[in-house]
């Protein structure tokens, strides 16, 4: 039995996303199957090939420090829930990519490091910024978990934030043919993870923060325990900058390492919060990986993706999904994959379609498979 100093629990969650601006409302919207993807007027005016996305309207789009404001909203919510202050926690955070913003004299470069620097100042060290593209949010949580488990720190705010709905990003990811371009249909249906008609992802804004701490510290403070973190795994595809191997072998290694780190077997996992962004190649490889990971059990394990509901918030994606995984552990419910109506036969899994899956789910793996081939997975378990 691991003693309380080396057990790691989640004591607070905060989210800002296209469907809600608090963690409880986020979970409610996910269970209801709502989509936050919509048409964005300024992208229409700019006549971009993609005009849909998951925008957070709580912070004005022209605010220069929008990335900092979104992140702070999620961080504040998580710390409030955990009854903790910034100076009582370390900070491991993933922020969006560097970008160009419209300045008075023309385009202005805004490095992602400036957002991190603004956020990190009040926290204890280590203040570590994670850069692993779409896997960054999950890696931030995993790094925090390992540091607490090793006894190096007692508490940490971990997660990520991104503001991606700028013409610069839209054109950049459209050039990579990763985005669902406009087809004249309902913008809410732009992103369709695992569906036969999927055609790419929808970029979105978002932020999510989790407070992780040792069980001993949480008990000492009388903090609420939402779930336990029990494992973290990572792997690298080493295959291609833009796509995973078709058989998802890197993702399989990542999943196995995560459950081994937890001292579990694949059969102990009840559900998967999938990365599934709605791309043709990525979803197929991920489905193959999940089937291989579970072996003959694959059709008994519920799999859900949030990207149809909230879009792809890159550095924030893994953290938003982790918050959902924590809620799944607490409630036993797995939210449906929004816009999944006709599963691709190459993506065969036990999908959650139309309404939440209810099966007393207790152990969840939350996965992120980043562009460039960095893979990360965190295992959450119901507490106690």
């Amino acid at each position, binding site marked *: 039995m691991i003693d309380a100093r080396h057990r790691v629990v989640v004591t607070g969650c905060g989210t800002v996303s296209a469907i809600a601006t608090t963690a409880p409302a986020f979970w409610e919207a996910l269970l209801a199957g709502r989509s936050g993807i919509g048409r964005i007027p300024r992208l229409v005016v700019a*006549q971009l090939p993609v005009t849909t996305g998951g925008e957070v309207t709580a912070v004005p789009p022209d605010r220069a420090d929008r990335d900092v404001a979104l992140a702070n909203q999620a961080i504040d919510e998580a710390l409030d829930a955990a009854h903790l202050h910034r100076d009582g926690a370390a900070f491991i955070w993933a922020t969006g990519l560097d970008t160009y913003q419209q300045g008075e004299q023309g385009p202005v470069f805004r*490095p992602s490091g400036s957002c991190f620097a603004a956020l990190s100042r009040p926290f204890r060290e280590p203040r570590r910024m994670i850069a*692993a593209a779409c896997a960054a949010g999950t890696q931030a949580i995993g790094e925090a978990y390992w540091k607490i488990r090793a006894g190096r720190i007692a508490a940490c705010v971990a997660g990520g934030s991104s503001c991606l709905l700028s013409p610069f990003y839209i054109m950049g990811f459209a050039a*990579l043919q990763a985005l669902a371009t406009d087809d004249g249909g309902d913008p809410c249906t732009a992103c369709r993870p695992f569906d036969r008609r999927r055609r790419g992802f929808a970029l979105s804004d978002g932020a999510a923060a989790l407070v992780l701490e040792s069980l001993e510290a949480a008990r000492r403070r009388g903090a609420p325990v939402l779930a336990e973190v029990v494992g973290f795994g990572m792997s690298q595809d080493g295959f291609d900058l833009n796509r995973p191997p078709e058989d998802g072998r890197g993702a399989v290694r990542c999943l196995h390492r995560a459950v081994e780190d937890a001292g579990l077997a694949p059969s102990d996992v009840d559900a998967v919060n999938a990365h599934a962004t709605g791309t043709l190649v990525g979803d197929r490889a991920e489905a193959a990986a999940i089937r291989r990971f579970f072996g003959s059990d694959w059709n008994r394990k519920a799999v859900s993706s949030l990207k149809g509901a909230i879009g792809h918030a890159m550095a924030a994606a893994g953290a938003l999904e982790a918050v959902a995984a924590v809620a799944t552990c607490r409630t036993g419910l797995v939210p449906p994959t929004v816009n999944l109506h006709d599963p691709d036969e190459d993506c065969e899994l036990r999908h959650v379609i139309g309404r939440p899956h209810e099966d007393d789910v207790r152990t969840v793996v939350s996965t992120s498979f980043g562009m460039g081939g960095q893979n990360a997975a965190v295992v959450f378990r119901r507490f106690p």
Partner: protein
Amino acid sequence: MTYLVAAALRRSAVAGPDAGPRQPRDFRRFNLPVQLALAAAAEVVPAAQDPTAMAVVSLAPCHNGSPELYRWVQNADTARSRGATAPARMNPTYTLHVIDNLALSAFVIAHGSDGYYLGVGGAPGQAWCGLEAVRERLDGGWEREALLMAGDQGGAGDALDGSGVALLFSVRRTAYAPLGRPVELLAIERSPRPEPQPVSAHAAEGLCALLHAVAHHGVGALAYEVPPQHTDGIDRVTVRLRVA
């Protein structure tokens, strides 16, 4: 025990067709910071016993981007100011120039590494987080070797003052080639500064300065106090090493 085994620096004052580091053909489409980091890493990898199993810690540039990308953004802005609304199609290669884990991904694809990885973001002073991660992994017995690499440039669209650096560490007591003596990494210590200090946003320069200090230190203990501009401005950082 963590020993510095090998290190490499690459500098490029001006990016041009002949000024950049020699690279595999595929790497030449990357932006200067990534090319320089990869070139430096390629120099130290031959000293590794097993590159496929070593930990790889890669620092993202503080100034990502490239002149090509910056020109595209400027052209799109000019077109917009003249009333043309739809920006021209972007070359997909330019998108890669802001991807924060590009050097890490390219290195792994080239060398087949599948051990621990850490992509550290491009905020000032993160180099010491990278060095801490190296020490944690090797002293914790998780891996036997670790690579720390970084590349950066003076400005997001300038490709000036580029530098790349790579450091290879091992649990084996091995002589650091430039000194012919083992160099042990003992600790990275932090303490809060009374007042925040101005910083320099450059992912590689702090590590370059550390290597310079090691090269000019004699035998014995070295307490290298990181200059404030190479930290995050919040912590005082001291790197403790011992040259045997």
